[in-house]
């Protein structure tokens, strides 16, 4: 028999866009040599719905519900990111209570995002139990969110100049209860994973990216911190008085899937600390700015005072009108730097809104991280990067 006939021909494999392990509508086209990926080309855009074009045709307030759909796993962080951009453009400083509420909901959403990211990541490599431990807690957080704003996923909780609704009376007790069960869930899950040989074999040294490469590709968030770079906007360029909170920036050293998972574990603990400190700081006070350019006047004034009535109508009919100008404003979202570049020409609708989703640059490095490795590794790496198609495709 001729040996030439046994030479392997390249095999092409199409992963996604409708594949249970591809986390949303991502598609990966691979050239295989046996089970090794020789070349991989990601294709996305299946979830592109023209977020930026929609913003140009909606009032500033109407843009907020669109931001829920960016990273739907941690919707409130997108609400906060967008509103902070517009507020910075208008020069509005939030009242203290509104700032603290935003910190609390952001950290709560960071925990939820990390629960999904680590939970689904280990499901993809065969550890289903952890997922249930995590999703029990996540459900409790969703109950809090539902009580807070009436919706579970599409929250639209913030308004330009503050938040939609104040915390409900039992909020602190329920949150403390939730954080306790989170602590238990993290202990349970790390107990199952630490020293677990299958888990370690599947994650340690898989999908390694060096510090230099990660910075070249524009990595931010847990994926960058897993390589050892201590970049966290909450520490580097603090907003909402994050400098007053006592928490650590979690870094690892190797930049592999294991480190990315472990960084997220530890960040959940740090977020717990921030929420506890924030709740201790809460004092009664306004949750909306009194800036008449953004905040609706109180109903008692609208019914009795012609100027308040006109102000109300103008804000509803024409929308908020930020002064002409442009700004780049960024917040530390669960996945990294969530930036909004906003251009206003002084009208009631944005001239341009550009969203910088954290996972867009991260996904660009994905082929490089999996080429030369097994198909199964590609799935393990993808979960660790936490690519969310909603914000990737916009």
């Amino acid at each position, binding site marked *: 028999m001729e040996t030439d006939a046994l030479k392997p021909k390249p095999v092409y494999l199409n992963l996604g866009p409708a594949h249970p392990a591809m986390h949303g509508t991502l598609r990966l086209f691979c050239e295989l040599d046996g089970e090794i990926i020789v070349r991989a080309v990601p294709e996305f855009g299946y979830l592109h719905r023209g977020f930026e074009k929609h913003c140009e045709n909606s009032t500033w307030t109407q843009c907020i519900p669109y931001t829920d759909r960016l990273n739907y796993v941690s919707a409130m962080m997108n609400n906060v990111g967008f509103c902070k951009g517009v507020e*910075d453009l208008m020069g509005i400083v939030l009242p203290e209570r509104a700032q603290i509420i935003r910190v609390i909901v952001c950290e709560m959403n960071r925990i939820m995002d990390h629960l999904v990211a680590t939970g689904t990541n280990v499901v993809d490599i065969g550890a289903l139990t952890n997922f249930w431990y995590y999703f029990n807690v996540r459900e409790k957080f969703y109950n809090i969110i539902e009580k807070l704003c009436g919706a579970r996923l599409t929250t639209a909780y913030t308004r330009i100049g503050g938040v939609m609704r104040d915390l409900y009376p039992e909020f602190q007790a329920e949150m403390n209860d939730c954080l306790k069960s989170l602590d238990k869930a993290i202990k349970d899950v790390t107990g199952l994973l630490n020293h677990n040989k299958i888990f370690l074999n599947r994650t340690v040294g898989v999908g390694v990216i060096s510090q230099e*490469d990660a910075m070249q*590709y*524009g990595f931010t968030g847990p994926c960058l911190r897993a390589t050892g770079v201590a970049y966290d906007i909450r520490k580097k360029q603090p907003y909402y008085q994050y400098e007053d909170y006592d928490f650590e920036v979690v870094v690892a050293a190797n930049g592999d899937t294991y480190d990315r998972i472990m960084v997220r574990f530890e960040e959940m603990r740090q977020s717990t600390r921030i929420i506890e400190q924030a709740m201790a700081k809460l004092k009664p006070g306004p949750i909306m700015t009194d800036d008449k350019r953004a905040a609706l006047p109180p109903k008692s004034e609208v019914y009795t005072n012609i100027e308040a009535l006109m102000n109300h109508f103008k804000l509803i009919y024409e929308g908020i009108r930020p002064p002409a100008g442009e*700004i780049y404003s960024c917040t530390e979202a669960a996945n990294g730097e969530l930036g909004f570049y906003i*251009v206003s020409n002084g009208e009631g609708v944005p001239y*341009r809104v550009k969203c910088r989703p954290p996972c867009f640059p991260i996904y660009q*490095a994905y082929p490089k991280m999996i080429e030369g490795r097994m198909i199964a590794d590609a799935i393990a790496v993808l979960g660790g990067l936490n690519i969310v198609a909603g914000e990737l495709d916009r």
Partner: protein
Amino acid sequence: MDPLYLQNQFPDAIPRAFLDKGEAVVHVIPEELHNILKICKNDPQLKFEFLMDVVGVDYLGQQPRFEVIYLLYSLTQNHRLRLHVRVNEGEMLPTASNLWASADWAEREVWDMFGIAFSGHPNLKRILLFEGFEGHPLRRDYPVSKRQEIPEIEEKL
């Protein structure tokens, strides 16, 4: 960061440099864009290791029509810079993908959405929209309600 630091060194390349709501902004002429970006990355005072994003804006009715903004961040210096460059329809900008890998997809998105081409780009094709899409949807003159049919595409790597 002091935007004048750059302008004082390259007064011909940078007609405007100022602070805008605390953000450092410089406007660069397109011919010198690549040069200035290279300096932004390598100058020890600037040291911008991150190209966070490349943004396109269509100022329909103005000359030049488009603006492209490079959002830079330096971890060592902990400062940011917004680098603006104006470009007309049909004109090209030099690619920054040989300086920062993140420019690759970011520039593809600008091409996809605005039709601004980048010379020297290794793989300048659509990224969010499908091959065969006509026009560039984030241009101001692209109607918001316009719909297009998705063509049959042959499978290829």
